[in-house]
């Protein structure tokens, strides 16, 4: 499947096979989740990042089935470049109606970045003005976990983390995704 036909598939799934709702409800609900974690964990932002990633991971384990069922994808990606393409053009498109830009491939083709021009989770958001949130909190960290969990279910172990965020005053919002390995044996998955 070519990159262009994936973009078409993403569009088609979004337009014809996706029930849609008010975006602000998702944005504000996500905000409530993050704010509650910050409160519960008393501003320990490293721990908040961890919890968000974990919650995302749990979502990813489930979301992959919805992704496969709706996109009707039945073939494994030929390589990690294809995987990147599918994540951006089909995955992000059908759930969040965005297609982050794929960039910064490393030489062995095992690491790339997603650049988020738009990030519906972060609309309306300003980080706490407490002198440390902008240095420590990755507000959208749940997305990393989602990707990690979803790919694990299709036998790919990846590392995903943000390296920059507009909310921190950076000029970009960038997530790095690295392929650790392809998982051969069927490991039992635990719902964390």
């Amino acid at each position, binding site marked *: 499947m070519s990159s262009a036909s994936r973009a078409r598939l993403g569009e088609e799934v979004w337009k014809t096979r996706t029930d849609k709702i008010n975006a602000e409800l*998702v944005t504000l609900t996500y905000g409530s989740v993050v704010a509650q974690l910050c409160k519960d964990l008393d501003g320990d932002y490293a721990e908040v990042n961890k919890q968000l990633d974990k919650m995302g991971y749990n979502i990813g384990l489930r979301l992959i089935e919805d992704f496969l069922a709706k996109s009707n994808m039945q073939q494994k990606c030929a390589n990690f470049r294809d995987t990147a393409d599918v994540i951006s053009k089909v995955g992000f498109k059908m759930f969040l109606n965005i297609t982050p830009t794929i960039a910064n491939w490393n030489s062995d083709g095992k690491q790339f970045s997603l650049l988020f021009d738009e990030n519906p989770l972060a609309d309306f958001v300003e980080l706490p003005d407490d002198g440390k949130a902008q240095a420590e909190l990755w507000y959208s960290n749940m997305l990393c976990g989602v990707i990690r969990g979803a790919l694990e279910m299709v036998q790919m172990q990846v590392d995903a983390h943000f390296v920059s965020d507009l909310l921190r005053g950076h000029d970009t919002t960038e997530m790095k995704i690295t392929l650790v390995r392809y998982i051969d044996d069927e490991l039992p998955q635990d719902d964390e």
Partner: protein
Amino acid sequence: MNRETSPFRTPSTGASPTPKHASLTASTNLRYSLTRKSIYDRHLNRTKTSELSKSAFAFLFGEMVQHAQKKVYGVQDLEKKLNQHGYAVGQRFLELLLWRDGRTAKRETRILGILQFISHSLYRAIFQKAADTLEKVRENEDEYMISDNDPLVNAYVSVPKEMSQLNCGAFIAGIIEAVLDGHCFPAKVTAHTAPSELWPGRTVFLIKFEPDVLEREALRVGG
């Protein structure tokens, strides 16, 4: 105004569309990108008609429920947590709605008025449909009911038998409670499953106003 919708701020309650001290909070230590637009540069109506997938919400909401469930004792406690999340969302939605109504924004001063605002305007803005019914509880002077045949948040939720008292619509109850509070109609709002043959997921939001609200209403009717 944009600040009010940020999840880390507590929006001013009260229907006044301009918070009194907005201009006094100008000093900040936050860093902003010089090349990209901050939330202050983007129009608040930009996302008014934006859509995301119902699936994205369902997964987020589901994980919120699961996460909340880990730290609670019993159904009531879980509903309280969901109510709190909804409350935070409701506060912000109210600010957005009133800001968007601009000069036509009306401050509801009567019980029926605010309940109609909730079951029509608010419900439409959030769920793209009006609530299905709005009724007064006959036996109790201070209670009203808003019903939703098929609450969005429960679309994919199947509550296990051992938790049959639970209704995750507590989240919507929290939204309603926040909007009532924001209009100075303090009330307790709870979600109850009330299935009909056609609508197995039908949910009733029971609104119980504080005594003050009824006293004030009586004065208004009297005057």
